[in-house]
């Protein structure tokens, strides 16, 4: 089994890929995909830290419990985000975030 630090480095790389995507992409779906990648990087981090004995027994599985919450919240976020996207597309015929400036003063 690999060491803890290799898991942490991998999740750092995945998280950075997500950061890159959020900054550079214009399509709202790509941004949502980057958010999902970041959430999964965090998930991997939680589970890796909790699978190695970092905390003491009463809190041993906290990371995995939080991973379950993160998965749940990711699903909810994706559902709402994509519903928003469909609504925005109906209104503007585009989901590029730079086009959505009707509220700009």
């Amino acid at each position, binding site marked *: 089994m690999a060491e803890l630090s290799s898991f942490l480095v991998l999740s750092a790389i995945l998280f950075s890929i997500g950061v890159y995507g959020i900054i550079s992409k214009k399509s709202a779906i790509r941004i949502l995909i*980057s958010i999902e990648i970041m959430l999964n990087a965090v998930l991997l981090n939680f589970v890796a830290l909790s699978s190695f004995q970092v905390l003491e027994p009463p809190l041993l599985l906290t990371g995995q419990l939080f991973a379950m919450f993160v998965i749940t919240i990711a699903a909810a976020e994706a559902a709402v985000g994509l519903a928003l996207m469909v609504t925005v597309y109906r209104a503007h015929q585009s989901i590029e975030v730079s086009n959505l400036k009707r509220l700009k003063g």
Partner: protein
Amino acid sequence: MIDIPFLILSVLAIVTAIMALESKEIIYGAVSLAITFLMIAGFFIILQVPFLAMFQIIINVGAVAVIILFTVMLVGTGTVVATARDRKNSIFAITVGIVFAAGLIIILSQWPGAIRAVPISLSIKEWVGGIASMLIGPFTPVFLTAALLLTAALIGALTLAKSEGTPEEVKDG
């Protein structure tokens, strides 16, 4: 030191994550994202948490990736044409990403806890028991909040998707 399954999974995870963002057709991006989710589940199996790995596949591959694919089909975006400003933007983004990754890796590699940590392996009974006692014990408020959040998200998504449109459309969709 680093074993082969971990190496293969990590290379695949990084490649598919980059493809999810950089592929020309957005539908390939969505499929790549599904593969990234699958790889993360593979890491969970390496970490000996099969329960969580299956949870990840059921929710992330089975629900999140599917609704992303579904939205891509509904919205239907063509291939993206990059302008000069986009290229500048993406160079900036790559720089930020690399700096971010470097910083995180430096911080993590200096953390002494990572080297001392030893892997634990619990049987499924112990694992489920531990999670359950935490869910009913100290984490009940979080659990209830997550349930409320899911309900709110369900209602919100339904309302958003149903609003706007003629009565016929609402009746059909």
